[in-house]
């Protein structure tokens, strides 16, 4: 079965881009969310194998979403997708339970590298 | 050869026609709602399957003396505008050579052809629906 992915970003544009990268590699995009709150809700519903998570979003940040998700699902595999200049937020997200991060603009290969690493973790 | 068809009808015993590619339907004459403060040749408006269509009294438009009451309405579409023309008898459909006499220009008529020794005027729809 294909690896299921939930994509979280407030910009439709970024969601599309990430989705395209992952779809090409055979991942199945099972859901998208535009806010942290939606992300938590969708995670509960879908329990995907992987989440890509933007940091700065309206209505609950990506970090709070990571915290919420990690509280209920400690093994959630979350990849932070960050813009430049969010260093301390990335650190905070990883402390909160995110497994890795990529920085916009990203190379597809880099995203895939991180994704593979995350998925291989126990 | 480039052929075209026209629908031929009468206005006070003279023959007129419209190119058939503009014609959507033909109905018997029907009552319409008067349009106040409009030009005299605007007969009224009707509801045709949800579309409001303006009827133009072709005799009044062409300034032909009116003795008979019109029997038919030809629904046309020109430049995306739908409208109806009230006419007397519908005679039928004729094939014409597209190029015949179309340079003939006189008011609302853009050409004519002859059939059985009768002259058939071809109406210029664009002028009919343009306010003058």
């Amino acid at each position, binding site marked *: 079965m294909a690896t299921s992915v939930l994509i979280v970003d407030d910009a439709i*544009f970024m969601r599309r881009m990430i989705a395209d990268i992952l779809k090409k590699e055979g991942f199945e995009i099972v859901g998208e969310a535009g806010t942290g709150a939606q992300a938590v809700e969708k995670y509960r519903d879908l329990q995907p194998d992987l989440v890509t998570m933007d940091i*700065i979003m309206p209505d609950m*940040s990506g970090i709070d979403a990571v915290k919420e998700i990690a509280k209920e699902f400690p093994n959630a595999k979350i990849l932070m997708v960050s813009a430049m*200049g969010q260093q*301390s937020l990335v650190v905070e997200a990883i402390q909160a339970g995110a497994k890795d991060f990529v920085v916009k603009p990203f190379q597809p290969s880099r995203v895939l590298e991180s994704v593979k690493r995350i998925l291989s973790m126990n | 050869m480039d052929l075209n068809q026209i629908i031929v009808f009468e206005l006070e015993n003279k023959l007129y026609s419209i190119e058939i590619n503009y014609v959507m339907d033909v109905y018997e004459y029907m009552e319409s709602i008067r*349009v*106040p403060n409009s030009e005299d040749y605007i007969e009224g408006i009707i509801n045709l399957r*949800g579309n409001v269509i303006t009827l133009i009294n072709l005799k009044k438009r062409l300034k032909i003396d009116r003795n008979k009451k019109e029997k038919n309405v030809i629904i046309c579409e020109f430049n995306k505008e739908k409208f109806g023309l009230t006419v007397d008898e519908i005679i039928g459909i004729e094939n014409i050579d597209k190029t015949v006499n179309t340079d003939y220009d006189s008011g609302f008529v853009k050409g004519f052809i002859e059939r059985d020794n009768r002259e058939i005027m071809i109406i210029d729809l664009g002028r009919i629906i343009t306010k003058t």
Partner: protein
Amino acid sequence: MNTSKYEKLFISEAIDYIEQISDSILELEREPNNIESVNSIFRGLHTIKGMAASMGYGDITQIAHQLEDIIDLVKNGKIKLYKELIDILLKGNDYMEMLVQKKPVDPDILRSFRSVLKSIEAGSEKSIESKTSELVKTVTGNVLDIIFEDDVVLKAARAFVVMKAIQDTGYYNDCAPSYNDILEGKFEKNFKVELKDNAPIQDLIKQIKSIPEIKDVKHLAEKQIKNKIEDKSYDIDESGIKVKNDIRVSLDRLDNLQNFASELVIARGRLQQLAYGLQDNELINSLNNTSKIIANIQDEVMKIRMVPVWQVFDRYPRYIRDLSNNLKKNINFEIKGRSIELDRSLLNTLADPLLHLLKNSVDHGIELPEERLSANKSEQGTLILEAKRLKNAIMISVTDDGKGIDENRILIMAIKKGLVTEEQAKNMSKQEILNFITYSGFSTREKANDISGRGVGVDAVKNILKKIGGSFEIHSEYGKGTTFNLKVPLTLAIIKSLNIRVEKERYIIPLTHINETIDIPTTEIQNIMGREVFVLREDVIPIIRLSDLFNIDTNKEKAKYSLVIVNVEDNDFALLIDEFIEQTEIVVKSLKGILSDIKGLAGITILNDGMPSFIIDVPGIFEMAKVR
């Protein structure tokens, strides 16, 4: 990566963010302490930066990045807001918009703009280079040297991922430089980690190497390391929250939905008539239930289409601000009733007319500060754009406290243009004179200028309002100011109206214009100086017979009539008809082609029985009656 297929989405979304930023900058100008505006600007810039970077648009990315840095300084209180800074932020936003829309921007201008941004940043405390402190720390024993790639983007964050991975294994002992320094990115290309003696070195190396941006991991033994510190990292506070739970729907789709819903309403009416004609109770009952559902659908569709007026109003402050700066005018622009809702396409239709009226007020209405002072007015002029809810309509008004309209000049113009004779002019009311402005091609300015001379004129504004079933009025007091009132129906497509009859003809009057309706016996119609009037609560109200204006054949005087009292330009008049049929909701179809511009008609609708009927243009009727 090929990004061209994302371009359309990028542009439309980036423009949204740019508008949000522009709104927030202006908000910030009004309320310099509004932290939510700062956060909103910050979020917007940040998102654009990420998006532009992903598209490979360097210029946009850099401008967004620099603006973001400046906003960050504002946020942290390191820069105080001042007017020029607001201008610069707006300018930067403009450049981003131009670049997003692929409009040409002179690279030299862009370069110098960016150096301005840089100097602002440099002028603040923040840009003082983080001090480099010499620090020596040693690790010994089982040491891994972790070497980063040259182009690692977030070094500190990457380092943290590495550190966490090692700590999670339980073999971590110590590191060099210090843990804090590493997490702040204060190392060059590598740092060292000391592991416990029993650590499975090869496994760990493999695991760390799988982390992105790690170039190499080497096993060292007992070495000393010196590290210099460089680089600075900046942090961002967590930003505020703004809800955005919407989906995007194209206006075309909404229009389609609205049309279908409207047709459903008409079809329902026809079905009901049939059902009542058949007197089949079962049919009537089930139709009544269906009716309720249809009413709900119609209601919801209408609600979907309703948007608050600020969606258009908020575009103006920026414009007014620039325009008044250009014209050296000092104007306080206020918007009132921002949250009042209006049909979306209706609001869009009004966007240009309103802009024109606002321009008019800035350009011709409000005086220069020195002129105002010498006229004993406050130096700063006031321009108010206001939306108000009326009973069956919305009133939008543009009010300025400028110099007002000189009626005498208008009248002279009107006489000169032959619109009125000198004799007629003597008896004209102020309102009638002001109305000349709405005549096409009428302007008291000899030459059209750049600002209001182009595009829509006041006559066009009036025509647009006629088309949408509204009305347009001008009030002005010379020396004191001018108000333009735009009365618009709540929705464009479906309006509440009165269905009336004169002889055999039926017409529709939109409720927007109606004050009240009265039945009177013919004996109450009085004749004063050749004009028919009647007295309503001590007011003398002129009567206009619809049959006269529409040339409807009337047989003979009836014993009683109905009157529709309407109000146009502050004048009440009574439209005399035979009877009221019913109050209905109608779907407006516009008059097109050969039917356009017919006096006294504003549109067409199809009634419940399937017959088409004309909608009366009430202000137009008033004009017609005045001419007689």
